[in-house]
């Protein structure tokens, strides 16, 4: 099974601003790996650097052992990396089906029709709305379309940037289960950036935590779930008693 990704020591800038300060991470073929971190930590920039939308000043990105850094993003896509960017970037004036077929633009093989049906199986609502302009879909449906369109690339690895951002809990659960199915049924490797840390930790097997452009923690998700920092900052599981105590203490000092 293919789709392994090795990122070594990348540094990426927005003009003079250094957004990524030496990030290394590895996604093994067939894994679901999650990249966590607060807003502005640099998660999106890491994904953009992998998919070629941004060029790193330093460092390397290897897909199945081949360097892909500094290639154009469309070339990287054709090599098998499908980037589903944050914010549901669909082609608003094309129909749903045209959007999906554009996902397979670079493919010449006969599997395209089959994959189109597969996408409609994963997301029946897209079949229902296949002739509608994508701009008229709801947020959740556009997210499904973006994932379906990435699937049409027949990718080795999918980079998903906050797929459940702003979606209702029903859609969040559906998208999480689809990601798991894509991984299990189609063998697609996944690198997942997600605001919903609980969902991300549940469906991934390994996780990295970013802060200020650096990786500050990495471990299996089993162990990350136990880590107190994660519990405090992301899962909101801080012991009420302790919290109360601290508040009390603060009061004292005010006086």
């Amino acid at each position: 099974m293919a789709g392994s990704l090795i990122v070594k020591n990348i540094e990426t800038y927005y003009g003079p601003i250094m957004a990524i300060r030496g990030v290394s991470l590895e996604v093994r073929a067939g894994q679901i790996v999650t990249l966590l971190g607060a807003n502005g930590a640099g998660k999106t920039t890491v994904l953009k650097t992998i998919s070629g939308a941004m060029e790193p000043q330093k460092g390397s990105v290897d897909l199945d052992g081949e360097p892909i850094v500094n290639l154009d993003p469309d070339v990287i896509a054709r090599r098998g990396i499908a980037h589903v960017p944050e914010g549901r970037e669909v082609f608003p004036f094309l129909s749903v089906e045209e959007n999906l077929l554009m996902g397979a633009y670079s493919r010449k093989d006969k599997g395209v029709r089959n994959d189109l049906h597969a996408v409609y199986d994963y997301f029946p609502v897209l079949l229902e709305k296949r002739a509608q302009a994508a701009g008229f879909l709801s947020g959740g449906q556009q997210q499904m379309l973006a994932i379906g369109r990435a699937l049409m690339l027949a990718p080795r690895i999918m980079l998903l940037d906050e797929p459940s951002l702003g979606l209702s809990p029903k859609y969040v659960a559906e998208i999480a289960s689809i990601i798991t199915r894509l991984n299990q049924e189609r063998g697609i490797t996944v690198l997942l950036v997600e605001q919903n840390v609980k969902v991300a930790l549940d469906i991934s097997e390994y996780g990295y935590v970013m802060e200020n452009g650096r990786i500050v923690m990495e471990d299996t998700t089993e162990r990350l779930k136990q880590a107190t920092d994660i519990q405090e900052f992301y899962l909101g599981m801080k012991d009420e008693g302790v919290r109360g105590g601290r508040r009390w203490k603060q009061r004292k000092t005010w006086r």
Partner: protein
Amino acid sequence: MEVLQILISGVSQGCVYGLIAMGFVLIYKATEMVNFAQGELMMLGAYLAYTFINVLGMSYIPGFIATVISMAIIGVVIERGVLRPMIGEPPFAVLMITIGLGFILRAVAGAIWGTETKTLSNPFTGSVARISDLSVGYENLAIIVGTLTLCVTFYLFFRFTRLGIAMQAASQNQLAAYYVGIPVKRIYSLVWALSASLAAVAGVLVAPVSLLEPVMGFIGIKAFCAAIVGGFGSLPGAILGGLIVGVAEQFANLYLPPGIAATTAYVMLLVMLLVRPQGLFASIQQKKV
């Protein structure tokens, strides 16, 4: 009857504006830049046709085809050689480059073909179609029929071909187009090829009704007005804007003093910007960055 007569010549002139305006819009929609050398591309097309037909002695249709193909290649060369190196530069700089390109093309045409006017041999001159007591010059008919054919072809191309849809995709969301593996840079080259071929068609069609001279590309400015009237960013709008400007101009010629009539296109542009700044065919399109 006179009104109908004027209407027809207005429509024919408007088609020419419309064809050039479509070139503006195509490039703008795909690459978000305005190619102010669009009129000069038309001029170059007309001169190339003159070279193929009058100088090299090709007959009209093969000469026409050779012109369109040559201009497509020139379009690609300009995109690769001049515009692509400008990626990432401020829009203002890119704008200046296309204006400069127009100057250069005019100078080159003057150097190669001279500044005295030339006439393109064509099968239409002098023949007139009579429809009841209306007489329409074949050259005007050719412009109208040619434009109509091109519009239908473009519609079919953008609506039904994979490449046409990919061009729409790249113009609607450039980054997403990259992410699905559409070769966006190659698409831009093709858009320039298409746009330059359009200019070539306009040049060949307009040649019989207007003499060839290096400054003939200045009608590009009126076509630019037409594109804005039509709602810059919509191909049907470009044609419609062209027709409106063309027809209004012909009527102004008849009823207004010559000095004022010549400003019709600009007056219409001003009126449109005041009344409906988004143009006739406002595309609801919010460009994503």
